[in-house]
C-alpha cells in the first residue's frame, strides 16, 4: 500500500479550507459591491424633488420618480388586498388539514405556483384582465403580483401556525369556544408575528418584480391612482431608464435603484429580526 504522506494531507486540508473560504468570498463580495455602488451613485440623486417630481422629458434636467413610487404602492396594495386574506386562509387550511389528500394536493399546488416564472404569471394576468378590459391597468398588474405573493404568504402562515402548540387550541376548545373562534381569536393572534413576516417577505418580493408588469401595468409617465389605467412602478422605471441611451436618465435609474434597494433590504432585515431562522425567500 502507498500511504498518503501526512504532510501532504495536512497541506491539502489547509488548501481545501482556504479554497472554500475563497470561493465563499467570491460569492458574497459582489453583494457588498452592489450595495456600496448603488448607495454611492444613487444617494447623490436623492432629494425631495426627486421623490416628488414626475419624469422630465429627454434633455430636461430634474425629473423624479413620484409616479413610480405611487404606482408601486398602488400595485402592492391591490396585490396585498387579494393575496393576504386568501393566503392566510389557505395557510390556515394547510396547517389544519395539511395531512389529508386535499391538503397534500393543495400544498403541491402552492409550491408549484411559487416556482412559476413571474413573467408567465404576467402573461396569465394579461389573458385574464388586459384582454377583456382591452387595455393595460393597475388592476392587471395587481393580479399578477397577487399570484406571486400568494404562495409566500400561504407557506409562511402554515409554518407559523404549525409551530403553535396544540395545547393552546385544546385549552380554548375545552372552554367551549367554537372552532372558528379558536382559530381566529386564539391561534391566529398567537402566530401574528410569523404571519406578518410572511406578508413582509411577500411584499419585498412583489415590490421588486418588473417582468410581469411589462404588459399588465405597462408603466405611465404620469401620476395615476386609477386602477383601470396603466401605472408606473419603481422597477419598471429602473428598467426603462437604465436601458435608455440618456445619461440623465441613468442617473435617475441609480436614484430609483437606491430607493428600491433600501426598501427591499430594509424589509428583509426587519423580517430577519422578527424570525430567527435563516430562510431564503423564494
Amino acid at each position: 500500500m502507498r500511504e498518503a504522506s501526512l504532510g501532504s494531507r495536512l497541506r491539502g486540508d489547509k488548501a481545501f479550507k482556504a479554497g472554500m473560504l475563497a470561493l465563499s468570498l467570491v460569492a458574497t463580495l459582489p453583494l457588498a459591491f452592489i450595495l456600496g455602488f448603488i448607495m454611492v451613485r444613487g444617494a447623490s440623486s436623492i432629494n425631495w424633488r426627486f421623490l416628488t417630481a414626475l419624469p422630465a422629458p429627454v434633455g430636461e434636467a430634474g425629473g423624479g420618480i413620484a409616479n413610480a413610487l405611487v404606482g408601486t404602492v398602488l400595485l402592492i396594495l391591490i396585490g396585498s388586498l387579494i393575496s393576504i386574506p386568501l393566503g392566510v386562509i389557505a395557510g390556515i387550511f394547510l396547517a389544519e388539514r395539511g395531512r389529508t389528500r386535499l391538503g397534500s394536493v393543495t400544498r403541491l399546488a402552492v409550491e408549484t405556483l411559487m416556482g412559476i416564472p413571474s413573467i408567465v404569471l404576467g402573461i396569465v394576468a394579461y389573458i385574464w384582465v388586459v384582454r377583456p378590459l382591452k387595455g393595460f391597468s393597475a388592476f392587471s398588474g395587481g393580479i399578477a403580483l397577487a399570484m406571486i405573493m400568494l404562495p409566500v404568504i400561504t407557506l409562511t402562515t402554515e409554518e407559523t401556525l404549525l409551530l403553535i402548540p396544540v395545547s393552546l387550541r385544546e385549552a380554548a376548545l375545552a372552554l367551549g369556544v367554537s372552532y372558528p373562534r379558536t382559530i381566529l381569536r386564539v391561534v391566529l393572534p398567537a402566530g401574528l408575528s410569523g404571519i406578518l413576516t410572511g406578508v413582509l417577505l411577500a411584499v419585498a418580493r412583489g415590490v421588486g418584480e418588473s417582468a410581469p408588469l411589462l404588459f399588465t401595468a405597462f408603466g405611465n409617465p404620469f401620476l395615476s391612482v386609477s386602477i383601470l389605467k396603466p401605472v408606473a412602478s419603481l422597477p419598471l422605471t429602473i428598467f426603462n431608464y437604465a436601458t435608455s441611451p440618456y445619461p440623465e436618465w441613468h442617473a435617475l435609474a441609480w436614484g430609483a435603484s437606491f430607493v428600491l434597494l433600501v426598501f427591499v433590504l430594509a424589509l428583509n432585515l426587519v423580517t430577519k429580526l422578527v424570525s430567527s431562522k435563516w430562510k431564503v425567500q423564494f
Partner: protein
Amino acid sequence: MRIERDSGSAFRTLLVLVGLGVSVLLAAIFLSLLLFSRPALLKNGLRFITGTEWNPVTGNFQALAFVAGTLLTSFIALAIATALSLALAILLGHYFRTGALAAVMKTAVELLAGIPSVVYGFIGLFFLVPAVRALQLALGAPPYGVGILTASVLLAFMILPYSASIGREMISLVPADLKEAALSLGATPSEVVRKVSLPYARSGILGGVLLSLGRALGETMAVTMVVGNAHNLTLNLLSPGNTMASLIANEFSEATGEVYLASLIEIALLLFLVSTAINIVGKLIIKRTSAAVHP
C-alpha cells in the same frame, strides 16, 4: 353520539374552498396558457422547438434559438453557482457554523436573494458588460459586451442563494457521530467533509441545485438587459443570444397578430411546464433525502 359540528362548519367549508381554490387557480393558469397558445400550437407544430427562424414578418415562429439560449445560460450559471454555493454550504455547514463570520455571510447570501432582478441587470449593464467587452477585445472577438456569457455570470449570482441555503442545511444535518467516527479513524477535517459529509448530504444538495435551475430558467429582467437579444441560434458564449423569458419580455407588448401573440404564449407555456417539472423533481429529492438518510 354525533359529534357537534354545526358551529364552525361554514368556516371549515371556507377553508376547504380556499384550499381547493389554489389548485383551481393553478389549473386555470395552465389551461389559459394552453388555450391561448392554441393557434400557435396548431400552426407551428413540432417545428416550434426544432426550427430557428423567428420572424414576425413572414409569420414563422420557431423557438429553438431561444430554448437553446435558455438552456445554455441556465446551465452555465448553474455550473458557476453550484461551485460557489457548495463552497458556501461547506464553509457555513461544517467549518463555521456559528460566529460572526457565519452570521455575516448568511445574511449576505440571503440579501443577495432579495435584490430585485432589474437592479442586477442594471449593475450587469454597467460593470459586467464592459468587463466582458474588455475580455473580448483581449481575445480578438467582437466586443459586444452583452451576450450569453455575461448573462450566465449574472444569473449565477442570482441563483446561488437557493442552492447555498439548502446545501448548508443538508450539510449541517450530517450526524455528529458519523463525523466523529471518521475523525477517530484519523481523517483530517477536509477528508471528513469530502468523504463523509458530502456523500451523506449529496441528494439534498442535488435537490437544492435543481431548485436553482428552476429559478434560472425563468429569470427575466436581468437576463434581458445583458443577453444581447439576438434572434439567431448560437453556441458561442461570447456572442449575443436570447432566452425564452427575455424574448417574451422584449416582444410581448408589441406583438400584433393572433399567431405572433399565441406563439409567445406558447413559449410561456413551455417555460411553465419545464420549470414546474424541475421544481417538483427538486422538491421531491429533498423530501426523499430528509426521510431516507436520517430516519
